[in-house]
């Protein structure tokens, strides 16, 4: 997406372009959304078909409109790192949704021009897995969001979101990456961003393998299982999306089509890891064997 912004985002990739931007980000007053356009509302956000407002206390209010504009009203003495991170995770998600593109909550690496996707809850090991694979030389594609190309072709293609990996401090230490150039994402939180602008892939790619990472108390060593059919659909449905407010804007049909496309286009595997034990090397070995055999 070509973005024009009044506000510098080091997380995004700078490019020169002369056509109209697809998205404009500016500071300004937040318009009031007419009641009849709002389909869901609570203390934090209002959502309509083409309008979305979210207020993050102590940071800013964000307004996303028509899939092409974000207006930000920062609060006095807010931290701009906070403003950016909330903008990227909330306002951008709303923009994509207004463009009828539904972001998938998965990390991805690229092998032979095609994608291996990783889904999993927080704590399931996505970051550690991604970090390990990158250290072993695999090509990074995305940290935690991939966006489907909404052109109705036979094979679904995915775009990456932006060139920044996000890690908790412990993960960085476990991977031996703590000395790499990094930037604290938000003040007061031990989470860091590592940029990969020079490796950022801007063209959409075709996924062929999907791995769902889960934690389990029933096992002592990691295991892997192929899944198909309805079970594959169910597992994907559990993990594919993050922002619960997506459910309030009537996009069920698009979610459904996206998940079924992924379930029929890619081979799906669930890798379970034992809770409370670091088994990242074993998991990475399972994944490498899988990638080599598929």
């Amino acid at each position, binding site marked *: 997406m070509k973005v024009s912004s009044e506000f510098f985002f080091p997380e995004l990739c700078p490019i020169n372009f002369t056509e109209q931007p697809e998205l404009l980000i500016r500071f300004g007053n937040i318009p009031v959304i007419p009641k009849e356009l709002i389909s869901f509302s609570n203390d934090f956000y209002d959502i309509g078909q083409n309008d979305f407002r979210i207020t993050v206390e102590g940071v800013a209010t964000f307004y996303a409109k028509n899939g092409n504009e974000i207006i930000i009203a920062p609060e006095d003495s807010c931290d701009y790192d906070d403003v950016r991170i909330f903008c990227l995770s909330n306002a951008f998600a709303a923009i994509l949704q207004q463009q009828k593109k539904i972001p998938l909550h998965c990390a991805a690496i690229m092998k032979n021009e095609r994608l291996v996707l990783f889904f999993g809850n927080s704590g399931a090991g996505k970051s550690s897995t991604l970090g390990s694979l990158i250290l072993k030389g695999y090509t990074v594609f995305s940290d935690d969001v991939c966006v489907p190309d909404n052109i109705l072709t036979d094979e679904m293609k995915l775009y990456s979101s932006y060139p920044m990996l996000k890690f908790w401090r412990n993960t960085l230490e476990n991977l031996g990456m703590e000395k790499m150039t990094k930037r604290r994402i938000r003040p007061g939180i031990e989470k860091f961003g590592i940029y990969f602008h020079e490796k950022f892939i801007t063209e959409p790619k075709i996924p062929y393998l999907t791995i769902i990472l889960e934690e389990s108390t029933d096992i002592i060593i990691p295991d892997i299982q192929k899944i*198909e*059919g*309805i079970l594959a*659909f*169910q597992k994907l*449905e559990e993990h594919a999306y993050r922002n619960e407010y997506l459910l309030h804007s009537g996009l*069920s*049909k698009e979610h459904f089509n996206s998940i079924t496309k992924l379930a029929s286009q890619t081979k799906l595997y669930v890798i379970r890891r034992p809770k409370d034990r670091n088994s990242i090397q074993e998991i990475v070995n399972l994944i490498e064997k899988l990638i080599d055999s598929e």
Partner: protein
Amino acid sequence: MNEYFVRNREVLASKLGDEVVMLDVDSGFYFGLNEVATDIWFFLEQKKSFDELIQMLIVKYDVGRELCEKETRELLHQLIEKKLIYKI
């Protein structure tokens, strides 16, 4: 018997291997169908009578008529309840 059945066109369905998963757009609920229900679903793309349905199933599954009719009735009942098919 002169009952006819047809599937609900508002349901979005996708075949995944031998199984079918479907979305009722209005309620937002997802359903999965097993092999027999999947066969019935595809067969009912056009309206079909109960007898035509039984005939198709007997041939495909090599099962006795009485058992087939009994089990098919139950299945049809469930599908109607979930508004996946209609009796007309």
